[in-house]
């Protein structure tokens, strides 16, 4: 898969940047979050998809698309985490008084 990343590194970067932006926004966003139940369900789904990818049970192009999605999603999550952490750090520095 690493060898193939040369073909779509742009898309991976886009996913990571998208995650970064989303993470940046999420810290100060006032919209309602996803309930814990949903998060668990989605985590389960993600685990199932990762398991399917590693066991290679999805054949042909669908298998390739699944792998691609999981890689992009993983980078998105990383981007989110970095974005949120950085924003939090910036916000906490700008409110030293409190």
């Amino acid at each position, binding site marked *: *898969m*690493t*060898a*193939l990343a040369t*073909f*779509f590194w742009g*898309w991976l970067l*886009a*996913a990571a940047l*998208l*995650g970064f*932006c*989303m*993470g940046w*926004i*999420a*810290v100060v*966003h006032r*919209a309602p*979050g*996803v*309930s814990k139940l949903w*998060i668990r369900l989605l985590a389960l789904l993600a685990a199932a998809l990762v398991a399917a990818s590693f066991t*290679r049970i999805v*054949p*042909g*192009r*669908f*298998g*390739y*698309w699944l*792998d*691609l*999605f999981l890689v*992009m*999603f993983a980078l*998105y*999550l990383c981007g*989110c*985490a970095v974005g*949120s*952490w950085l924003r*939090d750090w910036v916000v906490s520095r700008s409110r030293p008084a409190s």
Partner: protein
Amino acid sequence: MHGLFKWSSKWWPGVIPLVIFWGIAAWTSTATVEGDLAARANAALKDTVLDKRRISVDGRDVTFAANAFSEDGRVSAVASVEAAPGVRLVNDETRLVPEAKPYVWSAERDVLRVTLGGNSPLPSSKSKLMEAAKANLSGVEVVDQMGLARGAPQRFDAAALLLLDQIGKLKDGKITLTDSKVALAGMARDLGGREAIAAALKNLPEGYSVAANDIQAPPYIFQAYKDPVAVTLTLTGYVPDNNVHAALVAAAGRKFFSEKVVDNLKASVGAPSGFAAAVVPALGALSRLSTGTLVVSDRVVKLSGDALYDAAAGQIRNGLGKDFPQGWQYKAEVSVKPAAAPVDPTVCQQLFSEILSKGKIRFESGKADIVADSGGLLDRLIETAMRCPNATIEIAGHTDSDGEEAANQTLSEKRAQAVTDYLVRAGLPAERFMPIGYGSAQPIAGNDSEDGKAQNRRIEFVVK
């Protein structure tokens, strides 16, 4: 960490553009990725010998179908594709090349082309054979109908190349190699081609043998034409070697006492066995004909023409085949020449003298047995005797002066009697002939030289 968990519940809106990105990425990259993987898989198999290789890529999964020439080669080919970077799964559809039993290879030649068929063990040996065939047979179309199969006998290439060499010596035919047995059939291009092929087959690699060699040679032709108008005997066609050549021309000279021998013979290998033993008596039979053609084609002797009288025709038809070596056939188409007009006894005498001046009736040395070479001359004398049915003829035997006079007298009498018997057997009435022996009493030349003695040893026909 708690913060991260809290914030993560608000990350979901970004998933919507992420899914859109993913869709576009999947749409645009799939074909490129598949093309790249196919190229990598093919590159990984560059040095592997396979037949019917087919690689198709679906996503990152490679379907690899091929026929391998050994189990090791098959396993290593699959491993090479699996090791290509980026390949997720290999659907292994490889097989071993089927094993042929019996292992058959063939080369067939017809007028237009040479077709190579059957099996060959590897693509490299297949192309080697094709190249050799094209080099050997310049100007002839070479068609490749060879398949690939395992199970070839040892040293297959060497044997097949040697057999391909032989195809060049055929006009048409087929050479088949079945396991290590060679079978050949067809017609050689040249006289001697059959022998050349048989000799070359001795160099087959060890373990190979010839099961059947049915190569035919072009017919070995010898012809002789007796032309009564030009008074010539024309010999054409082939003789085995210079010795036989000389022997045949000498025999023709003895048998054809008045004709000039025109010698157009060529020496060539490929003569059937017993050639000279069959052709010499056949020439004797031809010498007895007024006009005729002798055609010897392989072991078939065909004689056609006109005999001088009925009994001679019968003798020629029935007598000749008995002298032939085994395996020879004799076909005679002998008719009888129309009888010549009767003449006066005086003319008869002139004709006898004329004939006997050109040739002599010959006997075995010291005996009263007429040699076969004199058949033509005697037939001519008999024909002449038939033209003057009322004349009485003295058959006079003479000898040279060597030896005792009494013995010479007896020999001359016996020889005269032998000639008379010959004439009677030909159907002439015995009472017309008077055999008389003169011993050495009436020489026509001096007995002091070999030449003179030879002239004195003679039979004369004297019309009374």
